[in-house]
């Protein structure tokens, strides 16, 4: 790798870091504005003044805001990420136990939706105007319009209740066997990937259509390049360039969309953790959750930015 490229990458990494730090500050300040107190939520409304004062001091919520923030940053480096009042354990322990679920869910949904979405998009583009194209386009629009919650409930109804082949709730870790794990993950992955497949299909289709009649495709044809190679080497690779941005954005959105999926299927992931932390006003936990997700999204964006440099040589300048 040339020195110029390395410098460029480092610059992007630095930008990402600054973004994340700014984000933590903003989040921290925002949480101060929301009414409600984690101590009261934890102790219950029967708590006496003394109890509240004692625990407020114990957990450091009586310190000035800037000091709370500094303590939190410090806790990043000592590995605890702070202490969650509502769950009575270190935040890092909680997130560690939960992130696997969300990552598994999002990764598989992502892979499935990229493969299926792009495939459908290519098929639709190549058969433009024909029956296949119309069917795919309509189903794509339906996929975006259909409420995720409804799809989830229908799937549970069919596969968990009627057929009994999938569990109706909970996460089955892979340690219980590949079969049970698959049965437990297939419904949530389907639900999570549904809107993404539709979006990718639509986008791939229009990207491909843009590319299909480009002059360089004509040149390739006149060289004697076979049809299959034209599609994959010339058309798709060029269509991918704008598609990549959409794909990465979608990944970021998916991290947020897991909240609903985790709720429907009762999966103990980051999404449900975030919701619970908001409801119990557990400031520490909430901010850490957002941070973790933000880091993932930032890293994903960073990777794509770097990839773009290799895929589309025009962006190198």
């Amino acid at each position, binding site marked *: 790798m040339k020195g110029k490229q390395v410098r460029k990458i480092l610059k992007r990494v630095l930008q990402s870091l600054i973004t994340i730090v700014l984000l933590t500050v903003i989040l921290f300040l925002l949480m101060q504005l929301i009414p409600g107190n984690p101590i009261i939520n934890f102790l219950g409304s*029967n708590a006496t003044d003394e109890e509240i004062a004692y625990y407020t001091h114990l957990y450091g919520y009586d310190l000035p805001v800037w000091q709370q923030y500094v303590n939190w940053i410090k806790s990043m480096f000592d590995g605890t990420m702070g202490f969650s009042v509502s769950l009575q354990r270190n935040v890092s322990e909680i997130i560690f136990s939960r992130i696997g679920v969300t990552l598994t869910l999002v990764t598989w949904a992502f892979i499935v939706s990229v493969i299926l979405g792009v495939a459908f998009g290519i098929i639709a583009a190549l058969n433009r105007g024909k029956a296949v194209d119309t069917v795919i386009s309509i189903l794509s629009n339906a996929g975006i319009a259909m409420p995720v919650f409804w799809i989830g409930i229908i799937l549970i*109804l069919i596969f968990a209740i009627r057929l009994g082949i999938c569990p109706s709730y909970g996460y089955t870790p892979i340690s219980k066997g590949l079969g049970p794990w698959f049965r437990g993950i297939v419904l949530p992955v389907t639900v999570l990937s549904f809107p993404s497949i539709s979006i990718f299909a639509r986008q791939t289709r229009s990207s491909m259509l843009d590319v299909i009649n480009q002059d360089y495709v004509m040149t390739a044809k006149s060289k004697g390049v076979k049809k299959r190679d034209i599609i994959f080497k010339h058309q798709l690779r060029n269509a991918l360039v704008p598609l990549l941005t959409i794909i990465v954005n979608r990944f970021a959105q998916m991290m947020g969309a897991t909240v609903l999926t985790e709720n429907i299927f009762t999966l103990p992931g980051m999404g449900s953790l975030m919701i*619970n932390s908001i409801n119990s*006003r557990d400031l520490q936990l909430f901010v850490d959750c957002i941070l973790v997700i933000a880091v993932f999204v930032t890293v994903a964006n960073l990777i794509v930015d770097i990839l773009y440099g290799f895929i589309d040589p025009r962006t190198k300048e």
Partner: protein
Amino acid sequence: MTSRKRFWAILLCVCLMFTLAACTPKPAEPQGNTDPSQGTQGNEQQPTTGPQSGGKLTVAVSNLFADYGYAPRISNNAALMQAWAAYESLLTTDANGNDVPLLATKWESNPSEPSITFYLREGVKFSDGEPFNAAAVQRNMEEYASINRSELANIESYEIINDYTIKLHQKAWSSADLHTIGFYVLFTSPKALQDVDSIKDRSAGTGPFMIKSFESGVRIVYEKNPNYWQEGKPYLDELEFVLIADASAMSSAFRAKDIEAAFATTFVAGDTISSGCAAQIRSGEVVSEKNSNGLVAVGRGLIFDSSNSNSPFSDARVRRAVAWGLDEELLNNAIFQGQQMWTDQFALPGQASYNDSMKKVGYDVEKAKALLAEAGYPNGFNTVITGAPSDQTMITAVANSLKEIGINAEVTVVDTATFNSVLVSGVFDGIYVFPYTMGDMAFYMTKVFSATPTSFKAAIPNTPVLIDQVKKLFAAGSDADKVKVEKEMEEMLFGEDGYFFWDPMTVMSPTFFKISALHDDQALQTSQWKAVWADAWLEQ
């Protein structure tokens, strides 16, 4: 493509979607009354055999506590229901609300000393093998006191008379202590208390089960305690509480037969599961249980900002006008479809301290308007009524009713955490929804009427006569005395000329759904948040 082909393609897609939608079963409308019946064992069929050992029971719950290992931290009712699998208290209650022995076989109150003596059951061991005795009791109570649990606030010292007899010396006589200490203090092995880390997510109690595993926010699994003091019990091998946040997910889990029981804490959740499992309930496969004796019930009333001198509610006549202007019983039955209990005072009808002989406030719109006029509001006034998300139906109905007497209340809903913070501070405008735990009147009234109130501090003005009455409650020597003072207080608050700092609206009752093969769990029978896990068994 030709428009004809397009038409067929569109038609195909639409048909596909309808087919998918048609896969849903007919939303079975409960015919007639499938309301989980109020009262005892619901539609439970009599078992064909005696208790059978073995099996695993999975119960869905909507909340899990942070750590079930360190018992002194557990005070939340819903968490107690799960914690009682591993820990026990000195006393428990029967279905009629009477105190019955558990870890204590006998007890004596001596108001003149003042003291309470407990005679402990012999032969009980903690799950780690340590003996349950007076020293263990003292150690546990001291632990509770050390984290400022209010139940032990009145205990000055402990006297160990012998291994199985312990006397608690009170600072001042309080009639509440026996029940609150006897019911809410859970016992952990002193050895485990020495090393608190050893009971992080582990238990060392006397109960029928012990913690097998705990996944924070996911599930807690209990396994049989082989050293349990009741021979032959528990019958179940394993007891699991799994967190399912969404009520319709609970309902799906039932129908998919992934769980055997579910605990619905709110009316809406209970309703969702009832309608989702309507078919199973009709066929008797699923049974629901509710509580009827009102013990440890949670009442929900309307509290006014009476201490705000600028508010119309600072005048008792206005507050009484609201009580006259609302047909609380009708509203309760309409909103909750007859599934929640109602009372016009603190105690439930049928309970000892219920005052039947006092002059009561009924439903009379004219009288309400007259009172308002007398207080200086002949044309009514504007105000605000605020509740948590689950209260929306109730406060909307109340606001509509209040219009009839000229009060225009704007309905506001706040989220649960915000709602909870006001419960402590008491700072609000107009009318707020007031959840309160019914039970021992002294224990709960002292939170509101005392020199240092802990609930709704700012809302209720300092009323010396009520504070004195509460003190009298604590000082009551005999049960008969206590009942007399309690009835007096009911009249002072909810009689025709009462203060009416709040107006009782409804008494919430959770619902316990279970498969009919589960027997003798007595869920919600002895009190609203309790089941007797030691007795529960599954018909194979």
